[in-house]
C-alpha cells in the first residue's frame, strides 16, 4: 500500500502506511497536544492528552494508526475540554507549584495548560501527595511530587541509553516511577544520559544539580511561543 490521505480538522493530510495519526500530523505541521509522547521514543498512549475523534470514536492520536479517508477532529471545543480535564487531573494528582518550580517557563504541563486556556483553578480536588524526594545522586535529583507518570524517562533510559534506570511500580493511583535500585545513586544513571536530559522530563521532576534557573524569564522555552510551536511552524515553511 502506498501513501494515502485523510483529514484533520478539514485539512487533507498525506500519510504512509503504518503511521499513527500523530506522526502524520507532525509531518505536515498540525500539532496534536501530547505530554507522554516524545519524538524518538516509543508511543505509550498513557496521558491521553492527544485524544482526538477519529471516525467518530475518541482515540489516542499517538497510537492510533492513520487510515485512508479517516476524518479526524483535533481542535474542537469538545476535544479541548477533554484535554483541559486531563491536564487538570495531572496538575491535581501531584504537587505543582509553578512559581517556585525550576521548570517554570520550560514546563510542558504548564505550557499545555496555557495553550488550552487554563487560567484558573479547576473544580478538581487536590490530592496533595507526599512523595519522597531522591537527591542521593551526586549530579541528579528527583522531585517525584512533580512527576506526571509520563514515563518518557523510562523509555529513554531503556531504549535510547540501553540502561533501564527507571521503571513503573505499583498500581492505580499508587503507580509511580521508581529508580532501578533503592535510590538513584545505586543505579548507573549519569547526568549525560538522554533520560536525564532537559528534553525528556516534561516537568520539573528530573533535576540536574547545580544548573537551576539557568535561563532567565524571557528566554525560556514557552515565554514567546505556545507549546507545539516547533511543529506548527512547519506549516508556514
Amino acid at each position, binding site marked *: 500500500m502506498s501513501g494515502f490521505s485523510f483529514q484533520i480538522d478539514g485539512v487533507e493530510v498525506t500519510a504512509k502506511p503504518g503511521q499513527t495519526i500523530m506522526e502524520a500530523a507532525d509531518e505536515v505541521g498540525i500539532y496534536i497536544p501530547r505530554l507522554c509522547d516524545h519524538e524518538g521514543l516509543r508511543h505509550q498512549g498513557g496521558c491521553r492528552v492527544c485524544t482526538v475523534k477519529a471516525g467518530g470514536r475518541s482515540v489516542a492520536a499517538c497510537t492510533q494508526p492513520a487510515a485512508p479517508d479517516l476524518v479526524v477532529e483535533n481542535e474542537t471545543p469538545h476535544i479541548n475540554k477533554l484535554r483541559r480535564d486531563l491536564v487538570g487531573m495531572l496538575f491535581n494528582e501531584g504537587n505543582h507549584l509553578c512559581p517556585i518550580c525550576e521548570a517554570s517557563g520550560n514546563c510542558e504541563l504548564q505550557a499545555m495548560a496555557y495553550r488550552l486556556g487554563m487560567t484558573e483553578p479547576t473544580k478538581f480536588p487536590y490530592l496533595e501527595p507526599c512523595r519522597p524526594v531522591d537527591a542521593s545522586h551526586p549530579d541528579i535529583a528527583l522531585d517525584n511530587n512533580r512527576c506526571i507518570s509520563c514515563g518518557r524517562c523510562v523509555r529513554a533510559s531503556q531504549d535510547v541509553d540501553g540502561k533501564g534506570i527507571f521503571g513503573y511500580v505499583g*498500581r492505580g493511583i499508587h503507580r509511580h516511577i521508581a529508580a532501578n535500585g533503592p535510590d538513584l545513586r545505586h543505579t548507573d544513571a549519569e547526568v549525560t544520559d538522554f533520560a536525564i536530559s532537559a528534553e525528556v522530563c516534561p516537568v520539573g521532576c528530573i533535576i540536574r544539580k547545580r544548573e537551576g534557573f539557568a535561563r532567565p524569564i524571557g528566554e525560556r522555552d514557552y515565554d514567546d511561543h505556545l507549546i507545539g510551536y516547533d511543529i506548527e511552524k512547519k506549516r508556514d515553511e
Partner: protein
Amino acid sequence: MTQASTFETDQDQVALICERHQKDPHRMLDILRDVQDQFRWISRETMATVAGKTGLTQVAVEGVASFYAFLSLTPRGRVTIRLCDDIVDRFAGLPAVVEAFENALGIAVGQTSADGAFSLEYTPCIGLCDQAPAAMINDVVLTGLTPEKVREMVAALKGGKRPEDLISHRFDALSPYERAKRMVKNNVRHAGAVLLGPVPEDAGLMKALAQTPAAIIDQIAASGLRGCGGAGFTTGMKWRFAEQAEADRKFIICNADEGEPGTFKDRVLLTERPHLLIEGMTIAARAVGAREGILYLRGEYVYLRPLIEEVLAERRAKGLLGKAIMGVEGFDFDIRLQMGAGAYICGEEGALISSCEGLPGEPKTRPPFPVTCGYLGFPTVVNNVETFCHAARILDCGAQWFFDMGTEGSHGTKLFSVSGDCINPGIYELPYGLSVRALLEMAGGEDAAAVLVGGPSGTMIARDTFDRKLTFDDLATGGAIVVFSPERNILEIVEYYMSFFVHESCGYCTPCRVGNVFLQKAVAKFRQGLANPADIAYLKDLSATIIETSRCGLGMTSPNPILSTLENFPLVYSAMVKPPKDRIRATFDIQSAISDARVLAKRRSSIYDKDFTK
C-alpha cells in the same frame, strides 16, 4: 545458623524457583507467586536475585511484584486471611466477622501478628457472593462465616491446625473435586439445556475433528454465540480473524479471571464442567490452528487449581490433549495453567495477555488486536470460560439448536450469578430474553429496590424498570445480578464500587487513574452531606471525560455506578443536596480540614473542637 548463611540459603532457594521456571522472564508471575508462597513476601534481595536470573532489571521485577495484590513487598503471616469486603459481604454480616477475627487474632485488618503467624487483609470480590461472608485462608476458602465460626477457626489455627484441616480432618485424602465441593457450594438453582444439564463427554470435540477448521468456525458463527465475559464480541468472527492470521504459533487463552463483583458463574463451570471447558478450548485450537493454550485462573480461585491440573493430566493421559489428539495426526494441542494474583484488570483481554507474559496486568494498545498480535505477539483467541463451554456444546448439538434459544441478537442460554438480598442466591442458566422481574421471582428477590445487572461496570436499575430484558441489546451482562433490598443505602453501594475501581485501576492512563479518585471523593461528599446541587453536574461531566478518554474498558465503564444511579435513583442524590433549614450550606468540613494542622500544632480550638471541654 548465622544470619548470613540463612540469607544465602534463602537466595539459593529463590534461584531454584527461577530455575524451575527455566529462568523465563515471561513466567515472572509464576516465579513471584512461588516466592510469595514459600517466603510469605518478596524482599529487595529476592527481587535482585530474580532479576539476575531472568535477565531483567530489578525495577522491572518490582513492577510486577508491586502490581498484584496477592504479592507482597513486606512480610506476611504464614497464615494469610483475606476477607472478601465486597458490598454483598458487608451486607451479609462482614463487620461482625471482621471484629471476631480482629479480637481472636489480636491484630487489625492490614496487620501481621508480631510472631509472623497471621495476617489479616481485605480483598475485593472473591466470587463467593452467594455464600457471603467469605474469606480466603492461604489457598483454601471458607464461606458463610459467622463470628462463632471465626472464633472456632482461629482457635484451631492457633492450636497448630493447617487451614486445610478447617475444611476436613482428612483433607489430604480427598480428591480435588471433593475438596472444592467441601469448601464451596455450587448453588445451581436452575440448570438449562446447554451447560448445566446433562452433557455427554467430548461429543463436540469428536464431531469437530470430522470437520474442516472453516466448517467449525462457520458453525460457531451460525449459532450466534457471543462472548460471555461481558463485552459480547461475536465468537465466530474472533475465531475467523485468528484463523486467517498467518503465524508460526497461535494461542488459545481461556479467561477464567471473572472479577466483576457479583460474578461467580465461571467458578461453577470450572468445578462442574472443567472437561467441557477444555473440550471447547481444544475445538478452538482445531479451528484456528493453535497448538498452545493457556488457562488463566484468577488468584482467588487457587482452591480450584488442583482440580484443573488433575483434569488436564487426565486428558493428556486419555490422548485428549498433547500430540495427535484423538489419534488425529498433526493435531497437537496442550494447555498450561496460569495463576493470577489478585488483579481485576486482568479480566481485560490485553491485560490478561500481559499478565500471562509475566508483566504487570496492563492492557495493551489496540490496534493491533489479540487475534492478530496477542500473546508474545502471536495471534491469540481469548474467550471466557462460558464461551468455550458453549462452543463445545454447539459443535455437538448444532448451530441451529443454539440459535433457536434466546432472542434475536442474543442466542442460547446464559449463566446468571444471582446474589444479595434474595432467598435463593446462586446460578441460573436461562435463555437470553428473560426480564429482570422474572429472574427475581425465581430467586425470591421480588422485594428488591434496586438490581445491579452486570456488576458495577453494568447498570443499576430501579423497580420501575424491572421489566427490562436480559439481552445484549437491553441489559447486557457478563452474568452478575446483585439484588438490593429497600433497606440498602444506594450511595453506600455506589461509594463502595467507586473505591473498588480506584483499587483496581492499573494506573496506566490519566483519566482512569486520577479521574476515578475524583469521582470517589465526590460521591463521598454526597454521603457526608457536603455536596451542593452543582456537584450533580460535576459528577456527570467528570464521568463523561473518563469514559471518553480512558484507554480500556475499565475506565470506559467505571463511572457507571454513578451514572446509572443518577439516572435511575435521582432522588437519592437530590435529597442529599437539599438546602438545610438554616440555609447555611456546608460544603466543607472544617473539622477534618484542620485536624492535621491541629495535631501538628498540638493545640485545640475552642471554636472548632466539638469536644473542647472534654
